[in-house]
Structures are given as structure tokens and as C-alpha cells.
């Protein structure tokens, strides 16, 4: 019998539809796999085996009765712990939400439930999605399945590692500055940040409202497209959600043809500061696209050099305000001040926030509070918004010339745990290539393109497309994925070291 944990979501969907396998069998296999390897990986903060198996049994029943089901019905999924899940803990990787159980579902969660996907559990993340290594989780780091002494990327390291370690075929991530794409690159998985507004943010605990976007984390481009199509679409509960029809991403992934496409390499997002092995795999992948009939040109977007600076003003500004609600008054951990008999609400808020938030969160709240202060607003927040306008104009100009842009997803491969923990600026630099997409609201996809020679770790290539043209990402990425797998004679993840299994 095939190892169900190794199957793609598309393969599982087909087997389930053909009744060759039951959802309970698939779900049980994954629950067992989580039990066996997650001690070493720590991709999950919460595993809901009973809930997932109950959904699986229900789907099996309904399928047996001949009910018309969603294509992915019965295919299990892991959800980043930043999305509200009714009746299941949602901590955002923070102590301040320890034990909080939402009384409502995020729209993405509701769509997964409505489509009958068993939810395996909630995945680890940097606290409130603030970080690029998942080391800022209050519940301990996630380990990279390729080398458990290394980070899996972040903030969505849990979702990426779960998929890479075959603990789930599908996962939901969220991407504010690269939190889906960078972990994808570092774990050899596919990660997509849809167009801003493409997927509802209702129930996604906000870090930076104007940048956050939920998206798929998978092992194949087609799986990502299937999940994308399921979770996307207009939501009247989210005013920033796009009312247009969802781009035909699944059809695009099946098309997989780059012949005649013009693809631009962003000059500023590569070269100096990028690891040689990353640059080498990137260049080879671009050559494959050229060989397949794409016209590849170099494009300059000089304003991208201001993106990181603008991001570290806009994001903390919005975060400082979004995180004000965590005040221990209505929910969350309440820590009264020590030695005070009759503390005021203000004192309780202060001590609870002090105890509940980690250092990186506090750092960003302080940065944002400062950037929004009267007298500094224009110089900081105001200027950053202007950079966004300039960036958007420059990307528009670039897309007037090319269909897609490409760059390495991350300047480096996965680095050892602890290496950059005390050097926030070095860690922030890891998002230099992913951040521009968030600032201008365009979609981006990271595809594994090989292993770096110097460390044997995965490298990702990022495709960027104009707003609402998410389908272009899937078409080109699926084409490149096929070319690479032909060259490798299999998937990249099949070359990942076997994890030690605990029984």
C-alpha cells in the first residue's frame, strides 16, 4: 500500500472520490505521522485528532450516501495558529492568548469546514507572525525537516514544516512580509501569497492590516491552486476583500505553459548579499524557463531598495494599534501586578501586556508607537506610505513590459537555530525580496528550485504577478515545477532526509 502521508492533495482527492481510500484512513495516517515526527519538528501547537477524524468519518458517510462533495473534501489540512477556529485554541504563538478558544470561525476556517477538510490542528508561528524563523513563538521553535538544527523560516514555519515533514498535505499560512513564501523556500515547499484582498482576512488575527494575506502552503503547485480556489473569494465581512471573481488558478496550474511569456528578473532582488548556491539554483531555473520558450529579460525596480525601510514603519505602526486590544480585559491571560492590593485596570493592562508579549512583539509595538507619534508621523508613517505609492507605480511600469517578475525568494537557505535571534536587523534582511509584494498588494509564489551546493538545503524562486493575476503565477510555476522534476527525476522533497520516527 502507498504511504498516504506522501500523497499530494490532488492524488488524495482522486483516491477519495474513487473510494479507493477513506478520509478516516488518510486522516489517521497523518495523525500517526504527526505523533511520530512532530516531537522533533514541533510544527503543531495543537493537534485535534478527534475533531479531524470526526470530520473525516462524516465526509466518508456523506460520500457513501452519494452526496456531491467539494473536490478536496476529506483531504486533511493544518491551519496556522493565527486564524480563528471555533472551539479550538488560537494562540498566535503568544502567551497572551494562551488558552483562548474563539467562539467564531475565520472565513477561511469556515470555508475549509464547509468543504469538509478535516483540520488536523494549529501550526506554530512566530508570535503574532512577527519573525522570519519561528523562533519567536512563545511555545518554542519549529525545526526544519531538512536539518532539525536549523530554522524552517517564518513566521509560518509550522505550516511549511508540517507540509515538508509529510504531517499534512495542505496547510494555511499567512504572509505579511514573506511569512508564507520564505518558509516555503527554506523547507522546499510551495507557498503562495495571493493578491491582497483575494482571500478574506476576517478571523485572521491582524499584525498589519494593509499587508496581511492568507494563502496556501503545499508540496505541489497544483495543490496550492486547488486550495487557493477553495479559500479565495469576496467576503462581505472584510471591507478590503476584492469583489471580483477568483482568477482561474487551477486551470492555470494545469495549463503549465510558459511559451511566449515575457519574464523579468528584478535586478535589485538578487546578486550581492545573496548566497552563491541560492543564486546558482535561481539562474539555472531561469534558464529552464528560457529553454521552455519564455523570453527572459532583466528589469530594474530601483525603489525596491526603500521597501524594507518602508515595511518596518508601516507594519509596526499598524501592529502597535492592532495589538492594543490584547489588554486582559475581555479575554486572554491576565497577570495582575505583584504586591498591589487593589490594582487599577490600567495597571492590570500594563502588567498583562508586559508578561504576555515577547521581546519581538514589544520591539515592534514600540517602533510603531513611535512612528505614529505626533511630530514624527509625517517623517515616518507618512513617508513610508509615499514609498508604497512609488513602489506601486514602479511595479505597474514593470508589468507593462513583462508578464511576470522573478527573484530568489530568500537571500539565504535555512540558517542554524539561534544564529540571528539576537540580531533583528540581520533577520529582517531575509525578507528583502518578499516584502515588496506585500507593500504593493501583488501576488507572489515561491517554488523549490533545488538545493544549494554549499549546504545541501532547499532554495526557492519567487514569481510575482500583477494584482488579480494570480493565475499567471500558477501557470509559470507549474511549468517550471514539471521541468525541474523531469530534470531531477522526482520531487525535491523526496530527497529530504528521513526523519527519526518515534513510536
Amino acid at each position, binding site marked *: 500500500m502507498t504511504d498516504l502521508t506522501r500523497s499530494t492533495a490532488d492524488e488524495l482527492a482522486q483516491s477519495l472520490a474513487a473510494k479507493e481510500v477513506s478520509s478516516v484512513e488518510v486522516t489517521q495516517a497523518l495523525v500517526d505521522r504527526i505523533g511520530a515526527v512532530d516531537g522533533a519538528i514541533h510544527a503543531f501547537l495543537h493537534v485535534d485528532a478527534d475533531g479531524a477524524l470526526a470530520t473525516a468519518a462524516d465526509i466518508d458517510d456523506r460520500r457513501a450516501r452519494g452526496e456531491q462533495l467539494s473536490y478536496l473534501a476529506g483531504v486533511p489540512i493544518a491551519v496556522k495558529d493565527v*486564524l*480563528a477556529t471555533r472551539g479550538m485554541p*488560537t494562540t*498566535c504563538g503568544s502567551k497572551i*492568548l494562551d488558552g*483562548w478558544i*474563539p*467562539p*467564531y470561525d*475565520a472565513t477561511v476556517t469556515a470555508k475549509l469546514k464547509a468543504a469538509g477538510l478535516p483540520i488536523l490542528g494549529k501550526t506554530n508561528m512566530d508570535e503574532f507572525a512577527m519573525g522570519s524563523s519561528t523562533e519567536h513563538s512563545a511555545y518554542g521553535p519549529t525545526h526544519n525537516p531538512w536539518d532539525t538544527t536549523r530554522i524552517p523560516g517564518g513566521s509560518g514555519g509550522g505550516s511549511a514544516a508540517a507540509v515538508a515533514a509529510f504531517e499534512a498535505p495542505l496547510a494555511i499560512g499567512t504572509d505579511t512580509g514573506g511569512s508564507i513564501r520564505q518558509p516555503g523556500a527554506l523547507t522546499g515547499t510551495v507557498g503562495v501569497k495571493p493578491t491582497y484582498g483575494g482571500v478574506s*482576512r*476576517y*478571523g*485572521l*488575527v*491582524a499584525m*498589519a*492590516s*494593509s499587508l496581511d494575506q492568507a494563502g496556501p502552503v503545499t508540496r505541489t503547485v497544483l495543490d496550492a491552486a486547488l486550495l487557493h480556489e477553495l479559500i479565495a473569494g469576496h467576503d*462581505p*465581512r*472584510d*471591507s*478590503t476583500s476584492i469583489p471580483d471573481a477568483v482568477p482561474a488558478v487551477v486551470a492555470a496550474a494545469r495549463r503549465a505553459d510558459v511559451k511566449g511569456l515575457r519574464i523579468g528578473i528584478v535586478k535589485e532582488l538578487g546578486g550581492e548579499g545573496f548566497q552563491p548556491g541560492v543564486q546558482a539554483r535561481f539562474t539555472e531555473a531561469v534558464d529552464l524557463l528560457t529553454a521552455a520558450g519564455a523570453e527572459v529579460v532583466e528589469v530594474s525596480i530601483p525603489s525596491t531598495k526603500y521597501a524594507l525601510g518602508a515595511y518596518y514603519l508601516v507594519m509596526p*505602526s*499598524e501592529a*502597535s*494599534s492592532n495589538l*492594543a*486590544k*490584547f*489588554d486582559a*480585559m*475581555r*479575554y486572554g491571560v491576565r497577570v495582575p501586578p505583584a504586591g498591589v492590593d487593589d490594582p487599577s*485596570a*490600567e495597571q492590570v*493592562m500594563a502588567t498583562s501586556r508586559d508578561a504576555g508579549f515577547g521581546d519581538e512583539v514589544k520591539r515592534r509595538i514600540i517602533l510603531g*508607537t513611535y512612528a*505614529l*507619534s*505626533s511630530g514624527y*508621523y509625517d517623517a515616518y*508613517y507618512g513617508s513610508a506610505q509615499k514609498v508604497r505609492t512609488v513602489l506601486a507605480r514602479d511595479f505597474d511600469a514593470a508589468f507593462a513590459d513583462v508578464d511576470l517578475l522573478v527573484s530568489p525568494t530568500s537571500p539565504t537557505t535555512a540558517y542554524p537555530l539561534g544564529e540571528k535571534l539576537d540580531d533583528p536587523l540581520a533577520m529582517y534582511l531575509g525578507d528583502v525580496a518578499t516584502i515588496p509584494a506585500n507593500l504593493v498588494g501583488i501576488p507572489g509564489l515561491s517554488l523549490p528550485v533545488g538545493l544549494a551546493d554549499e549546504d545541501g538545503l532547499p532554495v526557492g524562486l519567487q514569481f510575482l504577478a500583477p494584482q488579480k493575476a494570480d493565475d499567471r503565477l500558477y501557470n509559470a510555476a507549474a511549468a517550471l515545477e514539471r521541468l525541474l522534476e523531469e530534470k531531477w527525476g522526482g520531487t525535491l522533497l523526496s530527497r529530504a532526509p528521513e526523519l527519526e520516527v518515534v513510536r
Partner: protein
Amino acid sequence: MTVETLVPFEEALTRYDPVMGLEIHIELNTATKMFCGCPTEFGAEPNTQVCPVCLALPGALPVVNAKAVESAIRMGLALNCEIAEWCRFARKNYFYPDMPKNFQTSQYDEPIAFDGWVDVEVDGETFRIEIERAHMEEDTGKALHVGGSTGRIHGADFSLVDYNRAGIPLIEIVTRTIEVPPEKAPAVARAYVSYVRDLIGGLGVSDVRMDQGSLRADVNLSLKPKGSTTLGTRSETKNVNSFRSVERAVRYEISRHAGILDAGGKVVQETRHFQEDTGTTLSGREKSDADDYRYFPEPDLAPVSPSREWVKELRATLPEPPAVRRARLQSDWGFSDLDMRDTIGAGALDLIVETVEAGTTPQAAKKWWLGEMARRSNESGQDIHALGITPQQVAEIQALIDAGRINDKLARSVFDGVIAGEGTAEEVVVARKLEVVSDDGALGAAVDRAIEGDPDAAAKIRAGNLGVAGALIGAVMKEMRGQADAGRVRELILEKLS
């Protein structure tokens, strides 16, 4: 607590000029809240009209209530404002337990309506009040401080928060500095609030009840020495719950500021709370320019850009402008200018309209609202709308008078009974045994006794001097303890002495 040294109002104005502005918060009567679908009904059980959005549960997002935007635009148009072609919400960031998100979603430098004006009348003189802006925002929850003597947070044992009010749509109307002769400032402030109440009430977008907090006026006031151009430090007085209180709060703050400045002191920039019982203000939260709300555009909401066609349609739905309406009512009712001014001053225009609609003559409606009810309002300090008597009840009582069953004097007792909740006017008359004696037999006997008791007067009346009839009527009424129809008594006296 330091005792305030007050300078009498008139004396204060000999040395200082008041600089005054008013902020009015109007709670809209939309069925649902500003950013979620929760109901807005007043007086529900605490924390029953809440949801993830208005409780600011992690992940919840706001969506603008289109009906509230419509109300805001209509209000802006009624205040002669420009309506923004494009505007945004902004976050006003500060921590307070009654505010779930710890920021208030409001508007900052891009209000929906701006640059308007209204004209108000005081003692026959018209004053133009310039409106700087009218913007949309959400209300906070309501904190209830339990224990302690004042009901305020200081000294309370604990506090409870009701989030039913959190997220109710508010429109804040901000005036520019109100430029009027200093001695008129208190009356103009009152007239302005009263005018806005009528105006907004006429639009049907709010209950505009000061006593229930659906209309809240804040008085911003500072003094500058006469001849000086330097502005003084201002206080912001809240908790002003009636028109009369608006006037009193302005007067009190002028006296208080003058007292501080005369003594060489410095006025503290702070929020103060008006005390209805004493007519004074008490210090609330200190509010300095160091308070930094870190406003920035609300990224969770799309900008609001009302089309010009929509604005035009909404303009067409505006009711008759108050000045035109008043002129029409004055002519319909046959009121003098003075009658009309008193009516407006008492905030009784709509009460009289409704009383007339319920079948009472305008003169009788005026008699009750400007006489009896205005007196009760002044004595109790309650808003005339909050006396516990409705225009329909006034009309019922007047109908009993018209039917000759009670008289004006007895009616006062009926009002007492109705206000005390003893039942309908009819029931009160029966229960309190107030019905006038219309039995001619009993009245006739009393008239006979009065004539016997005052033969001089009787002789004069027989001789055609009807002017002395009052003495005999008085005697009859006294014997009947007021429970007689004076008109019928007069008729009986004249019949018997003709």
C-alpha cells in the same frame, strides 16, 4: 478637594472674553451598529448586544454601516455642510477598558461633512454658528463604577463594563469658535444645542434624547483677558444633560475660570463633569496636549466616496428647513413673535406640534407646555421632554377640560397623577375624585348660598354691574373646593340675578 473661587458671571465679563466651542455627539437610530450587525436598542440587558466585531475579538473586522453613512450625509446637508467626495476613517489610539479595541474608529482630517453653518435666535436676534465638521465615529462601551459616593471611578470598589453601546454609530458635530457678544454666550450655547436637536430630530436619524444620552453636548471654554489675543487654556465640560444645563455650564465655567485667573492661577486643561444638582463642574480626566492619539487611516476599512448623485438624492429627502417650518407653524397657529420665541427657547416646538396633532388647539397646547411644563422643567432641572408626560397625554387632559369635566386648576393635579404613573388622565380624574361638579342642583344650592352671603354684590349685579360677579364666583368655587366649572357658575349666577 479645593474649593473653587467663583467670580460672578457679569463681573467676569468685565475683565475677560469667553472663547467657546461646542461639540455635539449624536447617536444615530440605525437598527444596527456602525461596524457590525448588532442591534442598537436602548436599555437591553448588559452585554447582550455584542459580537466578535464590537467586542474586538482577535481577527474580527469592521464593515461600515451604509445606513449610518446616509444619516451622516443627511445631517451634514441639514447643517449646510459640504459633503466629502472621498473620506476615510481613522484610528484614535488610547487605552480605556470601555473601548474594546483600545482605539476608537473615528474620522480625523477627512470628515464626511465640513464647512457648514446654522443660524440660531436668542431674544429676537439671530446668531450664525459656523460648523467646522461633522464626522462619523463609534461610541464606546459604558463603565459603571460600583461603590464609593459619587458613582465615578475615583473611590469606586469595582467597575463593570457594558459593551452594548460599543460601536453604536455617532456623529460628532464640531463648531468653530462661536463669536457672539460675551453676555450672550450661555444663551446662544443653549439655543444652538436646542436648534441642533430640532434639526436632527426632524431628519428622523436620531432620538436626540439628552436624558438618554443620544444627544450629548460638550462645552469647550477658555477665557482671554479683554484686549488680549492670546488664547487661554480650555476646559471641556461633559455630562451636560439638558438645554438648561448647557447654559448653566457655560456660566459656571466662565465664573470658575475667572476665579482661577484672578488669583493668578493656571487653568488646567481637563475634562470636567457637569453636576446637575449643584450646577457646578467637577474635574474629570486631565487632558493635556501631551495626549497623543496617534491617528492614522483605518487600514481595515475602504474609503467612503459618496457619489454626487446619491448626495443629490439625499438632499431631496431633507425636510423643510427649520426656519421655514417655524414661519409656517407660527402662521398656522397664530402665535405672536414672542410666543414663538418662548416656544423655541423652551425646546417645546415639536411637543406643541404633536399636541396639536392630537387634537388640542395651538393656544391650549402653548398654555400647557410653556406654562405648567416649562415651570416643572425649570423646577426639577429635567429636560422638558423628560418630564414623563407626552403630547398625547396633554391632549387627553385638555379634552377633559373642553368637555367641562375638569378645569385648568384641577388639571394640574391630573398632570401630577399621570406623571406619577397612576394611570390615564381619565383614571386619575376618577381615582383622585377631581371631576368638577356639573350637577346644577348642587351648584345651584351653592350659588344661592353665595348670593345670600353677599347681598351687596348681588344687588350690584342686578343693577347691571357684572364686574363684581367674580366675588360670587370665587365664593362658590371656594365652597366647591375648586371642583366646579367656573363658566357654568357664572352662568347660574347671572340667570338667578337677571
